[in-house]
């Protein structure tokens, strides 16, 4: 994901998940809307309690340039999403760790989208670019039993 607006590299660098991307798109939409209004917009209020509070200055500068807003919005929308179905609620630490791994090994323009699936037990189901693959503990157990069922049953019957 090469940012088209170098000034906002820091914003992109901190972007890890699809939820964050969607939140940023929402903010940009608000900013675009305000550019057509006569009264000044309260950016602090819009970004309050979001991961983008610390980027208030950059966002204020951007709010006056609708073309840049449009460009940023398109860039954000074009980012790749890697969906990870997992059984636990990830901590911030886990989000950072997994996101870094993805940016390093899959691509810098790839965001992660965590989905909760209780049936997985452990591991993850990965959905990326229209493909899906389970690397879950459930599958590992099933595979183990399918491959070793004869041996397991033999041991049980002995």
């Amino acid at each position, binding site marked *: 994901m090469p940012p088209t607006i170098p000034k906002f590299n820091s914003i992109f660098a901190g972007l890890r998940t699809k939820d964050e991307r969607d939140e940023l798109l929402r903010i940009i939409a608000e900013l675009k809307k305000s550019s057509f209004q006569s009264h000044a917009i309260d950016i602090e209020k819009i970004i309050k309690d979001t991961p983008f509070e610390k980027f208030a200055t950059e966002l204020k500068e951007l709010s006056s340039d609708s073309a840049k807003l449009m460009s940023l919005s398109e860039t954000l929308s074009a980012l790749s999403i890697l969906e990870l179905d997992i059984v636990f609620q990830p901590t911030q630490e886990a989000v950072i760790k*997994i996101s870094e791994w993805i940016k390093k090994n*899959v691509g810098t323009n790839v965001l992660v989208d965590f989905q909760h699936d209780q049936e997985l037990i452990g591991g993850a189901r990965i959905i990326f670019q229209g493909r899906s693959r389970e*690397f879950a503990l459930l599958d590992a157990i099933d595979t183990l039993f399918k491959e070793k069922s004869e041996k397991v049953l033999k041991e049980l019957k002995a």
Partner: protein
Amino acid sequence: MSFTALGVLGVNVLLLIAFAYFSFTFLKKLLRSRDEVEIEKKEAEKVGQEILSKARSEGYGLVQQATKKASEIITQTEVIGKGVGQEIKTKLDAFATQGMQGLDHTAQEFMHSYGQMAEDAQKSYVKILESANEQVTSDVRNAISEFQKTAKDEISRYQSLTDQRVEEWHIKAQQEIETYKKAAFEKIDKSIYQVLSLVAKELIGKTLNLEDHQKLVVQALEDAKKEGFFKP
């Protein structure tokens, strides 16, 4: 009741019916022969009586006619003399006596012939009876023999058929048992597998902590990378 027992029972019933039929035929034939001989005997007796009666009647007629003729001759020849007449009368009496004796002799011969005929008829009757008896016996024996052979063949056929069916049933039953056993074992294996799988999942799911889960996710991503999952 087995197929063999049913077959034997059926054969026995058929044998009994055959025996009753031939017995009835034999008795019918026997009674008919006896009746015929009796009728023949009575007819011969009747004919004999008629012949005898006719012969006697004719004999007496001849004697009376001769006596009458003689009386006329005597009357006509009275003129010849009383002595001659007496002599002729004596001779005529002798002739009449001789005629009667001849008739008796004839009657006796006829009775003898009749007795001989009756004896021959009796012998013939006995011979017919013996012949009929032998014929019927032979027929019955042949029929029974033939029937026994047929019955034996039938029993053998039934036995063979029964054996074949029992064998087929046995094979089919074994196949069904094997199929059922296989299905049952598969079902048991599947159930055991499901139980084990469920237990394993439950145990693993409960024993994993957050750190383990995070490691598993990263491991999943590593595995996906190794498989080339992220390559376009």
